[in-house]
């Protein structure tokens, strides 16, 4: 009896030793910054002078800042259209790539994954040139089929769609996850559906999509949260222009923090971001439960 207790105690002590790096890391690099960030959000802090407590002033002025609303609207645009198109596209490619009757697919699978390996700065440099109005690849290809392409990144109404194109090109990671999800679906379901005369489309709608829904949900959550945190590409390619059309939420936050040194203001934006992320996750987990019941 006594010995068993010792084993339990020894295991606990050992476990705490093993996870100690994580405990320290979480306290110093996660918990402290979360709390400090909330404190800073209640101050006026320009780094040069010590922080001055101003209460909820930063939040109040955020709600009167047209740029705050514009950056939020830009991000929601990407969150809705970017996520929807990327998800539909990634599932389409994954379904096509999962067809065991087609040959040479392992090579094609690699092709769709390659863009995710390119460093973000290089993606930025490359896409600036692909999207050039008069001698870019995309408009040249469009001109072959008689379409006069837009000015993309230089045109306020086409700048966000330009970034959606880039999102599609970089969706290889999601495709891999969808393929893995598809391979979990038993082949026998498709066989019996085929005997009943269901075609490819019918099989996709009644078997593939419902059984894939947990994976879709996971990918959508990841994508939406990434959209809210995403700012390297617009920072490199457009720095928010033209006409603030690509001033996304996190780019706006980054600028306030590291270009205007309004640390208090930026911290308030960070806390709102945290709340938005939590709400999104909560909603999607509720949805997950619903889907789970259907299964």
């Amino acid at each position, binding site marked *: 009896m006594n010995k068993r207790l010792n084993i339990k105690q020894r*295991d*606990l002590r*050992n*476990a705490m030793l*093993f*996870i100690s*790096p*994580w405990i320290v*890391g979480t306290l110093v*690099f*996660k918990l*402290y*910054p979360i709390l*400090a*960030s909330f404190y*800073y959000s209640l101050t006026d802090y320009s*780094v040069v002078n010590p922080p001055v407590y101003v209460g909820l002033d930063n939040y109040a002025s955020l709600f009167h800042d047209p740029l705050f609303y514009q950056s939020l609207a830009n991000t929601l645009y990407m969150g809705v259209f970017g996520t929807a198109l990327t998800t539909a596209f990634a599932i389409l490619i994954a379904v*096509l790539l999962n*067809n065991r*009757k*087609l040959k040479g697919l392992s090579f*094609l699978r*690699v*092709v*769709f*994954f*390659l863009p995710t*390996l*390119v*460093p*973000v*700065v*290089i993606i*930025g440099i490359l896409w600036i*040139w*692909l999207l050039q109005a008069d*001698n870019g*690849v995309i408009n*040249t*290809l469009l001109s072959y089929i008689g379409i006069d392409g837009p000015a993309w990144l230089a045109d306020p109404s086409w700048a966000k769609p330009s970034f959606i194109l880039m999102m599609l090109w970089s969706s290889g*990671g999601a495709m*891999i*996850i969808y393929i*893995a*999800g598809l391979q979990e679906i038993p082949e026998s379901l498709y066989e019996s559906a085929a005997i009943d005369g269901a075609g*490819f489309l019918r099989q996709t709608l009644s078997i593939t999509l419902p059984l894939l829904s947990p*994976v879709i949900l*996971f990918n959508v959550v990841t994508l939406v*949260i990434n959209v*809210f945190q995403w*700012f390297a590409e617009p920072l490199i390619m457009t720095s928010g222009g033209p006409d603030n059309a690509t001033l996304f939420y996190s780019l706006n936050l*980054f600028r306030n923090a*590291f270009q205007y040194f309004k*640390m208090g203001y930026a*911290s308030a*934006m*960070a806390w709102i*971001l*945290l709340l938005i*992320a939590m709400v999104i996750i909560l909603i999607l987990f509720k949805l997950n439960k619903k889907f789970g019941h259907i299964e």
Partner: protein
Amino acid sequence: MSIPSIERKRDYQLASAHQRQSFKNGIQLTAQYILLLIFAVCFLIPFFWLVSESLKKPSELFEVPMLWWPKSPQWSNFTLMFSSFPFLLYLKNTMMLVIPTMIGSIVSNALVAYGFSRLEWKYREQVFVIVLITMILPFQVTMIPLFLLFKELHWVNTYLPLTVPHFFGNPFFIFLLRQFLLGIPKELSFSARIDGANEFQIFYRIVMPLAKPVLTTVAIFAFLHTWNDFIGPLIYLSDNHMYTLSLGAQQIMGTLDPKWNILMALGVTMTLPVLVLFFIMQKYFIQGITMSGMKG
């Protein structure tokens, strides 16, 4: 007499239905294949373009209509990269971040994941939920206080803010390793304990050798993340002797004469090692990504 004839008729009908079905399937398969090929070509064009631009003369970059391929490929752009861009210095700086990050990621996450999988303790699963929650904590929330903290410590413009945190666990890697370690039979640990091995010996001599595949995945992801990272160096490195390849490339873009063809050559040079790594280690990449998406 009539019965066989009906049967024959039904056989005939079945066969022709089958034929029609397989013909339809054939068309459908061909259509799917063509669709995939079109998309695949679209996905490859940017890579082709990167190479094509990296071999152009400066004047050819701006030609309208565009040139699919330069008239005489300028391979010298790749040697110019060394003289007009501090390539070797920035490569060295990048490695100064990559190597500690890889070591820190492997060591710390292996230890932590071991504590969360190979040892039984009360509230283990509850504490692990905290790991999962921190995985979705937005980077922007911690970015400002950490910058101010590192500034107080006089770590800004050193590599410490970009490497030290990797020695304290990363929730995604902990999750990845834990999934793998849970699958190793417990009996191995039991018998080692009976033989008198202490917990660290079991970790180091028995469990870690078995976990090599997933440790490789962690090492690859840590490498890739640091090699490609741009935001971290942008925040913390202000002295241009300290720049990494990514940050150096981005800073040149903002200058008056960015020498785009040299930048494209740099792009080819930075992407190539990653692609080679991918082709050698494909299995580990796919395994890591698949595990991250298949929690349930």
